[in-house]
């Protein structure tokens, strides 16, 4: 009977795939070291005044750390396409939420914000 890859019913063949969970203790400790270094680096870079670059640097380190966790601790490196699709898909839609929301904020004319407190606004002060 015709099968496709994702369907596993009655297929002992699935046992062949790499023992996808056990990352070795060495790998695990290496990742751990990288995470700790990343944390230290985050604090260190944040203590310097990098101007506009503080947040991008912090985010880049955080994304790096998150990627390590997802790939190694959460086994995505060793998992099937479906799991990877779910992971990539959820981040994709998160980026959609971010990106399209900011397509509004970043292209607005900022001049129309009312900075002052309510009552001091001349237009609102009637009589």
């Amino acid at each position, binding site marked *: 009977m015709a099968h496709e890859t994702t369907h*596993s*019913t*009655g*297929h002992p063949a*699935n*046992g062949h795939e790499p*023992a996808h*969970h*056990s*990352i070795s*203790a060495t790998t*695990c*400790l290496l*990742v*751990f070291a990288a*995470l*700790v270094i990343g*944390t230290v680096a*985050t*604090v260190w870079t*944040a*203590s*310097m*005044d*990098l101007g506009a670059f*503080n*947040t991008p640097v*912090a*985010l880049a*380190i*955080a994304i790096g*750390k*998150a990627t390590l*966790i*997802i790939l*190694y*601790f*959460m086994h995505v490196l060793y*998992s*099937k396409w*479906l*799991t990877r699709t*779910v*992971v990539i*898909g*959820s*981040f994709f*839609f*998160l980026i959609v*939420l*971010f990106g399209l*929301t*900011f397509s509004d*904020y970043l292209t607005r004319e900022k001049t129309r914000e009312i*900075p002052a407190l309510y009552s001091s606004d001349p237009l609102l002060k009637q009589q």
Partner: protein
Amino acid sequence: MSNAHSPVAHHFYTIEQQKESATIGMWLFLATEILLFGALFTAYAVYRYKFPDAFMVASSRMDWKMGGLNTLFLIISSVTMVFAVSSAEKGRRGGLLGFLAATGFFGTLFLVVKYFEYMHHYHDHDVPGLNFQWTGAPELANGAQIFFFLYFFMTGLHALHMVVGLGLLIWIFLTAYWGKYSPEYYNPVEMFGLYWHFVDLVWIFLFPLLYLLGAHLPPGGGHH
């Protein structure tokens, strides 16, 4: 999610099918969690964009040492969780129990530190909706309040996930103690591991975005 009595639930044909189902189910659940926190991160980004100075000054009232300590606790607990799963996979019951206990220990430490942080903020009148008082520059008050609200809401939601996680951990620990898991069936341990790593993941973003914005300011930069 699967039947606890026999490894294969009645509606599955093989244990492999059941396991893959659980994995995908768990990942889909984490996908909803990503969007759940993602919405909050979006709100954070928008308000940070609107109130850059207020966010920076308000953030300098955070104790980044506490946050950094908590980051380490979570990373360590993640590592012990990885070892717990691999112990379960190899059928080492003692290792599983030990690493689970370590994971729970560091998770609890995280919450304890969090508790002291919250109490500290409470005494400093930093809690919006409860006792928020801004003593800094008045034009930053609105932005600072929103920053603190987002801080409490995001870390609170994260802490809620930790509490739920610790509850699940106790359940996993007990079932492991009762010998429910074997190299053929340790799915719940693995699924719980995914959840635990996810909680760690969220914190990795929360830490720099909430604690470190004002770290480069001179000491006490925005303080009263």
